[in-house]
């Protein structure tokens, strides 16, 4: 999806983890290219969290090899390794007795940055995540809403500017609206900072929205990996098909496809349909507009409001399906 995604930043090579006789992760291999966002998705207990936590050695793998930037992670001191990898979890794990600013600044402090540099970094991260410095720097975690606390959690994970960010269901405990706005925020931030992100979720919609690469796991194994549109178009088995929503997936795919990819040029007679849609909007929205307004074609406009094409209903039927 992203052309600059080059060498793998994180490589898992036939990695296993067993707890006694129980095998949690069974011989998985995975490459995460630098600057890409890889989502591990699956039901509870499929091994996705275990896989994530093996990358920063919160859990030691028992078989295979994990490499970061070409180096085996076992070579690093585990504490040093973790300070170089951002980590955000579902319930934020913010330190309740520390202010927001101190929470965000904890890893720079561990790395012995001087105070001025830490403060500058904390303030710029708060700005990046839409947290007003004046209002929030001195607050304690219990004074924050769920969404604000999670923003602080993400800011803390990014504080020491790590190349890699591990996120374990970071938005799992949030209401749908807050979750959706944080997903949008994550995509916006990622387009600027281009970290290598491994993101765990059980929510396939979240995976489809965020991922460059989706890895579907079941019972400790990878059963399919690919881009969101590959997974939607060709689920490898019934399980993946169920995950991507079964017969609902036409709409899911539509929500991933921008109108601009499907539009046609304007007809020669110059008649422009009355209802319009942005070329960056999703096909799902386009369908919704057609249904709502009872029309069979839409005008497509760009950011400036200039009409750049049109979208007839027939395009959906003829070309959008498999």
């Amino acid at each position: 999806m992203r052309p600059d995604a080059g060498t793998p930043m994180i490589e898992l090579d036939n990695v296993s983890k067993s707890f006694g006789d129980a095998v949690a992760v069974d011989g998985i291999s995975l490459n995460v290219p630098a600057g890409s966002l890889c989502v591990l998705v699956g039901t509870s207990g499929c091994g996705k969290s275990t896989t994530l936590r093996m990358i920063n050695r919160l859990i030691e793998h028992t078989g295979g090899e994990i490499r970061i930037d070409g180096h085996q992670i076992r070579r690093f001191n585990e504490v040093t390794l973790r300070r170089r990898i951002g980590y955000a979890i579902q319930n934020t794990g913010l330190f309740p007795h520390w202010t927001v600013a101190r929470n965000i600044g904890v890893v720079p402090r561990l790395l012995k940055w001087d105070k001025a540099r830490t403060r500058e970094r904390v303030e710029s991260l708060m700005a990046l995540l839409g947290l007003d410095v004046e209002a929030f720097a001195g607050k304690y975690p219990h004074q924050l809403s769920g969404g604000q606390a999670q923003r602080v959690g993400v800011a803390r994970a990014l504080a020491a500017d790590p190349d890699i960010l591990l996120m374990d269901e970071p938005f799992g405990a949030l209401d749908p609206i807050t979750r959706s706005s944080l997903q949008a925020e994550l995509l916006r931030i990622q387009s600027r900072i281009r970290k290598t992100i491994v993101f765990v979720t059980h929510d396939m919609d979240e995976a489809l929205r965020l991922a460059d690469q989706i890895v579907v796991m079941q019972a400790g194994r990878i059963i399919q990996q690919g881009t969101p549109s590959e997974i939607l178009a060709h689920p490898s088995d019934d399980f993946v098909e169920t995950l991507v929503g079964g017969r609902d997936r036409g709409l899911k795919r539509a929500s991933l496809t921008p109108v601009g990819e499907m539009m046609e040029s304007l007809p020669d007679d110059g008649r422009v349909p009355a209802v319009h849609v942005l070329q960056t909007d999703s096909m799902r929205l386009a369908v919704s507009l057609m249904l709502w307004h009872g029309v069979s074609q839409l005008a497509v406009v760009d950011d400036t409001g200039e009409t750049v094409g049109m979208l007839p209903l027939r395009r959906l039927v003829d070309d959008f399906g498999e």
Partner: protein
Amino acid sequence: MRGLRRYAPPLIWLLVLVLTAVYLSRLEPLFAWLEPDRQTVVYPRQSFVALLLQHAAIVAVAAALAIALGVGAAIGVTRRAGEEFLPLVSQLASIGQTFPPVAVLALSVPALGYGAEAVVVALVLYGLLPIVRNTLAGLQAVDRGVLESARGIGLSPWQTLLWVELPIAAPAIMGGIRTSVTINIATAAIGSTIGANTLGNPIISGIVNGNMAFTLQGAVLIGLMAVTVDSAFSRIA
């Protein structure tokens, strides 16, 4: 200014305690009225100030040892290396609370003989229990997610303990220390029965000789000392 106001109650109690210890003997007429048939109505053998200082010293040494041992044990058994001992220690801590202090004192005499050392040992043993119990409760109540993220972002085990676990558990730990010290201020008085010089001396002497005035003098000072220390803890914790 605000600091002064915050600490005013314990400071006032301390002032009352010191003044009482220094000037208690001036209240001779009052005690003479209480015990009209006695010639001596103010405990004569040591000054109250000396007894107060010795009492405080015994309690302080015992408290320091109990805090070090109790907090240390609770930290030890909540680490991965010591987790095998967690059930044992936490059971000992709850069973030990049901022991009467006099029994602990009586048991330490055969081991250490008479004197202040035996009292200190008894107080340490008795004072350990609330500290261990509260420290365990405080450490175990630290949110799992907080510990997980502390490890995950790269705090070493020591940093996790010092920056995260102990500060979060501090109110519970302080509560345990407060209970322990307050109980031991009272318990130390019994030390007089095994040869330590404490504010228990006038109390025991008063009981033995049937002189209520002596007993009252010891009891008032012990009471004031307990209130002073408790008041100080209520400001810190």
